């Protein structure tokens, strides 16, 4: 009996230890070191050639814009700065939502929009061919590596070809709607290629379509308000290093956000005294930070009673 029982015990223990019928496992400390796989990045050069341009024009004007405007209301300020600057430029904006890119692109005058490319995370937008083709065709995106590394087309080459760039220096969408630290890539590009940075601040995209949402939400049945404001172009000063220049870019965006929520004059005065509110938000509980950002900016006051085709 002892022999049989021990035999059964052995089989049971083997079945349990070697996970019969299931996928076998390797102890964690014995797992082989695997070099991180460099995700395949699909090129986007084709997206800046003439046929793609034509296709994009149709896609944006016939597809994207009507849909976008049907879902959100927008208010655009400060576009006059573009009259005073020659392209290419680098548009640097805060990043809180997937709505940011269409908002920014569709706010630009057509001649600027057609010559603007958007830097998009290689690991997110260029990991599969269909995502790469889709985003390049619709938004003229090109891949940049958030972790550092070489890419098929560097932002510098795109700039050198005369394209303006949209760069979100935070590197990713904000999780709570507030602005986070800026990486130095945009300032570096502006510095090395001697191209002005046009700061752009927008509000309301987090409230309309935060991380995780697939479609813009509604505010009491109505379209959410988005605002976007373009600021005065910035250039690196004589002898200024990238390290000094980059914070100035962030301050410019912060001042624009302040201006957008108050007035130009108040924002200017606060900026002069260095008391521009921190765009990173107050140091309070996460829910309070998110709560504050879920409110859409106030829109234009409705002019007269809303007209409806069908009177109720």
């Amino acid at each position, binding site marked *: 009996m002892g022999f049989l029982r021990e035999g059964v015990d052995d*089989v049971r223990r083997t079945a349990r230890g070697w996970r019969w019928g299931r996928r076998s496992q390797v102890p964690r*400390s014995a797992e082989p070191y695997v070099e991180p796989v460099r995700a395949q990045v699909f090129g986007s050069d084709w997206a800046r050639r003439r046929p793609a341009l034509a296709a994009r024009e149709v896609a944006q004007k016939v597809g994207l814009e009507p849909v976008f405007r049907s879902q959100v209301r927008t208010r655009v300020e400060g576009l006059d700065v573009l009259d005073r600057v020659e392209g290419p430029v680098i548009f640097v904006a805060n990043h809180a939502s997937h709505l940011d890119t269409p908002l920014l692109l569709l706010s630009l005058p057509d001649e600027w929009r057609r010559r603007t490319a958007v830097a998009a995370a290689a690991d997110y937008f260029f990991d599969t061919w269909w995502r790469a083709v889709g985003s390049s065709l619709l938004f003229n995106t090109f891949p940049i590596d958030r972790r550092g590394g070489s890419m098929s087309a560097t932002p510098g080459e795109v700039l050198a070809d005369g394209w303006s760039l949209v760069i979100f220096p935070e590197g990713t969408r904000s999780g709570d709607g507030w602005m986070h630290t800026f990486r130095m890539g945009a300032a570096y590009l502006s510095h090395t290629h001697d191209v002005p940075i046009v700061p752009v601040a927008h509000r309301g995209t987090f409230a309309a379509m935060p991380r995780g949402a697939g479609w813009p939400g509604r505010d009491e049945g109505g379209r959410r308000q988005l605002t976007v404001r373009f600021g005065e172009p910035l250039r690196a000063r004589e002898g200024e290093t990238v390290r000094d220049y980059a914070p100035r870019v962030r301050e410019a965006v912060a001042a624009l956000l302040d201006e957008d929520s108050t007035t130009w004059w108040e924002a200017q005065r606060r900026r002069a005294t260095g008391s521009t509110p921190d765009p990173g938000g107050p140091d309070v509980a996460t829910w309070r930070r998110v709560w504050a950002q879920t409110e859409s900016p106030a829109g234009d006051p409705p002019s007269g009673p809303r007209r409806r085709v069908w009177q109720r």
Partner: protein
Amino acid sequence: MTRPGFVLEVDDRTPPLVVHEGLGFRLEDFPLGTRVIYPPESLPGIADVEGAVREALLHPVDSDPLPERLFAGMRLTIAFDDVSLPLPSMRRPDIRQRIIEQVLTMAAEAGVDDVEIIAANALHRRMTAAELEHIVGERVFRSFHPQGKLYNFDAEDRDALTHLGTTDRGEDIEISKRAAESDLLVYVNVNLVAMDGGHKSVGIGLASYKSLRHHHNAHTMVHSRSFMDHQKSAMHQSAWRIGRVIKDTVPVFQVETTLNNDVFPRPYEFLMKREWEWSVRDQASMLAARRGLALAPQKLRHKLFHDLRAPYGLTGIAAGEVEAVHEQTLARVHRQQLVEVQGTSDVLVMGVPYLGPYNVDSSMNPVLATCMGLGYYFNSYRGHPVVRRGGAVILYHPLDEGFNQLHHPSYVDFYEEVLAETTDPAVIGEKYERQFAEDPWYRHLYRTSHAYHGVHPFYMWYWAAHAMDHVGDVIWVGGDRRAAARLGFRAASTLADALEMASGTVGTSPSITYLHNPPHLLADVRV
């Protein structure tokens, strides 16, 4: 590509691990966080062994090529390591046979007539004719054994010994007369572990008790940290002093070989694999082996294990001047066996297998099991012992094999009389060693039968002296309680019980390291 050794940390994904215990093995669930030291995988063996041997003999290190050192009318002696190496015995043809055949071919070409071949067994038992034949091969055996030119070294034959003087520390050097008076002594070694070879070959293998007692004692063993590292081993330092004197009088041509870790032949290959990589076939082999061994009577289990012949591959060979050759040899041994280990632990766990150097075709008696666990395995380190000072050692062995009356007669008396009195190696050596060493009956059995020398069990006990001095607790899992008590240790039925018993020494949540050998490994402990 051969993977290096490594240290596993047991986690929830780790299957039960093999632990050897005498004529069998068990699967043990180690506590989470236990470190398990695995030896490097077996290195690829040299394909053209004959070519490698010829190359080594024709292009030796710090020596003229062998053919140039052979001449007609010379006295040539070939000595070779005895049956204690390698473990388990090697599949035919043994590497020593291949080397000796080439040496003899060159000697024949040079017209050498006076050749004797001596098994360097020191105080080990005399090998049987079959064992000699297994090592040197049929051709050599047939040509030399019937004429009495192939024989075991006899350390008690006063007429066949010569005293070469003493070292600067007063150590006697008494070795085989034939070897000492030869025009050339070719020593053919198998360097299985780092303690073998070098000046230990001639200086110990062909030496008598008078010479051996200077370094085979409790004092040198406690000061050998470890005896697997010849530079830090008091025993080796003594052997090196002796060897350097021998080198001045006797022209020695040392041939050293290293083997890979192919220890277990089919169908026991699973014992050399890392458990989580076992295929279904390996698991089935393990289950079949476990059930078969459980069913088999002790004699059959003994036969099953002791009939295993290892399919060792040759990893390298070097010939020439002893120390220069040995340096190359050690580098190769380390490449095959060294594993880097960070820090010591509170508890060291080791499974004592069925075989040690002194129980080939014999039984692993309790004294030999102690020597194997606390001697060889405990000392398988470089730098620091794997277990901290005052820690605990847990060994697996049933301690139930009894004594082989043919091979180990003096062990019986050592166990029954000496260990009953005291287990302290220093006291034992002081009080009883000379009596056993000079006992005429043991001498007679050593010289005419196949018995280990009367003093040999003392050496086994000295081998464990460093471990006994270093650790606070020794517990045998699955060991016979009476035998363990006689050895001065305790027995437990399971690992959990053993850890419970050790908690008085190392606390209730000690750090544990399990030495997963065989195959052989050498822990390079960094503190």
